[in-house]
């Protein structure tokens, strides 16, 4: 907002010219020009890559292929109302996708928050030497594109290829990363590997901004390093913790790359494992664009609702804390 108000201030500080009305007009024109120039790129992108696709998805979810009887010979596109939505909501495999996500979150979110917070606190405490190097090394996995990371991990998970499995086998331990019960932890592991460093940077930046006098006060009161970390530092950066939780939740709803690749390697990850995979499967394997669009719209609504709820809840807690 500040960028928008700047021109006005500047217009006000110029020396009074001959005709105030004309200047005001010129100022307003300038102002409008600034609005447009500054907002145009954002608006163009928002419209092109968000609003138009969302609008098209909504359209496709209501107007889809319809057939009579057995349906041979092709259908025609008509208004089908809520039919696609009803079909999606009645599909056990779509609903179970949210189940997979929930289970994934239960494992992933606490681990990633605890892990990255712990690392950030360690870095902040000054216990780790070569702080910059450590920070960079931890951040590095995040720079690897998700699909490449997934391929590398898949290689480490695949029996017959993986040096890790071979190593365990030499010690007479059979380990199956792609089994019925191990496949979800295996996916969480990939996400942790790439997410830990990134979230650590967020926490570390928040910790750096802590008022030093508070920490000093804690020290004078006799709080040790661990106590300062857990009872002073963590409560103060609560906001960042909540933000990371929220981002992790929303990212989890979009889970696609890792399980999609795993689907190629093990039947334990089916082709509709997450809501996003369900959408892909509906569009490109079942060739049912109405169904895919309805599922997309539902996922969008759920994601928006969840983000809204979390932000509201966090805001209220923040206020009541004050």
């Amino acid at each position, binding site marked *: 907002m500040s960028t928008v108000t700047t021109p006005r201030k500047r217009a006000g500080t110029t020396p009074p010219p001959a005709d105030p009305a004309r200047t005001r007009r010129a100022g307003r024109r300038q102002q409008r020009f600034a609005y447009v120039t500054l907002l145009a790129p954002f608006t163009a992108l928002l419209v092109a890559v968000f609003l138009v696709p969302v609008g098209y998805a909504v359209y496709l979810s209501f107007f*889809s*292929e*319809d*057939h*009579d*009887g*057995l*349906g*041979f*010979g*092709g*259908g025609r596109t008509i208004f*089908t109302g809520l*039919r*696609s939505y*009803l*079909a*999606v909501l*009645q*599909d*056990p*495999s*779509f609903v179970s996708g949210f189940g997979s996500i929930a289970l994934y979150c239960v494992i992933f979110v606490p681990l990633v928050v605890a892990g990255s917070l712990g690392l950030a606190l360690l870095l902040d405490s000054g216990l780790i030497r070569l702080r910059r190097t450590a920070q960079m090394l931890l951040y590095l996995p995040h720079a690897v594109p998700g*699909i490449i990371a997934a*391929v*590398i991990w*898949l*290689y480490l998970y*695949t*029996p*017959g*290829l993986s040096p890790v499995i071979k190593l365990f086998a030499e010690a007479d331990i059979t380990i199956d990363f792609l*089994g*019925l019960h191990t496949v979800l932890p295996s996916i969480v592991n990939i996400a942790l590997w790439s997410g830990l460093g990134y979230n650590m940077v967020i926490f570390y930046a928040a910790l750096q901004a802590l008022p030093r006098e508070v920490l000093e006060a804690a020290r004078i009161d006799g709080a040790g390093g661990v106590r300062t970390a857990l009872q002073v530092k963590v409560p103060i950066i609560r906001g960042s913790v909540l933000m990371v939780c929220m981002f992790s939740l929303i990212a989890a709803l979009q889970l696609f790359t890792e399980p*999609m*690749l795993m689907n*190629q*390697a*093990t*039947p*334990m990850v*089916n*082709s*509709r494992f997450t809501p996003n995979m369900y959408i892909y*499967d*509906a569009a*490109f*394997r*079942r*060739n*049912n664009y*109405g*169904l895919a669009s*309805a599922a997309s719209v539902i996922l969008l609504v759920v994601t928006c609702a969840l983000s809204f709820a979390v932000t509201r809840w966090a805001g209220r807690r923040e206020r009541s804390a004050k």
Partner: protein
Amino acid sequence: MPGQRPAVRRSGAAVTALLTIFAMLLVAGCSGGGKSDSAGDGPVHVTFWSALRGSQEVVDEYNRTHTKIKVDFEQVPSGDQGGWAKLSNAARAGNAPDVATIEYPQLPSYAIDGVPRDITDMLPDSVRRRIIPQAMDLTTFEGRTYALPVDIEPMVFLYRKDLFTKYDIPVPKTWAEFESSARKLKKAKPDSRIASLFTTGGTLAMAGLAWQAGAQWYDTSDKSWTVSMDDAPTRKVAAYWQRLVDDDLVRVEPSSSQQWRAHLQSGETAGWLAGAWAAGSMMASTPGGKGKWAIAPSPQWDPEKPSLGTQGGSTFMVTKDSTHPEEALEFITWMVTSPDALRAKLSSGVSSAYPTVTDLVPVARKEMDTSYYGGQDIFGLFQREAELISTRWKWGPRMVSTISSGDDGLARAGVGSGTILEALREAQSKTLPDLKSLGLSVTTR
């Protein structure tokens, strides 16, 4: 090899997985039919997509012997590697090729999406009569024909004759005998099993077995899709195989997997239930088995009333988009009915696909060296078995997804979570919402 479905290798390398994703992205992104309509007096160009091996040789032979029509061939990835999506997307974008290859189970799906052209009125009776009715029946819906079938694959039983003889195990004629032979083999040679229950690829195998038992997963007789993947015959078949699995009488593994192939090579798996094409596939993949294998008819539930299902087989469709449907049909008719086409296909390697045109069987028999099977007249066997294929069966409107859902369930059943029947029920429940959202008339039984 027609009918041979090059399945995804579940144990496949990461590289394969990556390539597949890239292929999918490519398929999703672009790729047109590359239609090149010639103006004037030159030959008419017909574009042709196929994933079948040997197609290039067939097209070369056609182009060598024909001048009025020129076929432009493009090898596409097999269906589950992106071929199905490629065809669907091309048709959606309005640039499908003139001719495309599609397997039987997937044909109804494309016919519902309006990809193939209704060739009923274009197809001369002289051609129709030459094709085995069981095959025509699978490409004809509500009296309209949407594709020409090129091969039909009766289920047969490939077995290690040397092992069966050595341990004095009878070759089973009925499923009851199959079970007792399985027990006998395991007792005589504890590391060996009579056959495999497939996880990946298993739903199609189950379909063939249920088909034989008289199941109707999809019944279209009253103008509505009646879906029952757990009807009485299917329950019988599922319970039977579940017992074989529970008693550790069969191996449970993905079809076309390295482990399965290794077991076939070592004799740890002594049999394989598959379509006729499997004979050629076995020769190519297990050369060391020469002289050891033989082929028997599939076991029957009731030898007095023999019946059979299929596994595999492909059809050729003329697309709705085709600008030269007459020429396209002429070309596929040649591919299906001409001895030259069959010879060209066989020249590319070992194929034992059973042609739908029965009068071509002598050609196949002459071209095929069956010394691998001790000179057994395998095409004679296929011919007898093909006659037994039941015409009660119809494939459903969205088989790609139904099959993959079933395979997921079978894989879980294979590691002790759930049963074969539960896998099939799950496949059905995952299919129904899809059909309903297409507006199809659907009932369950």
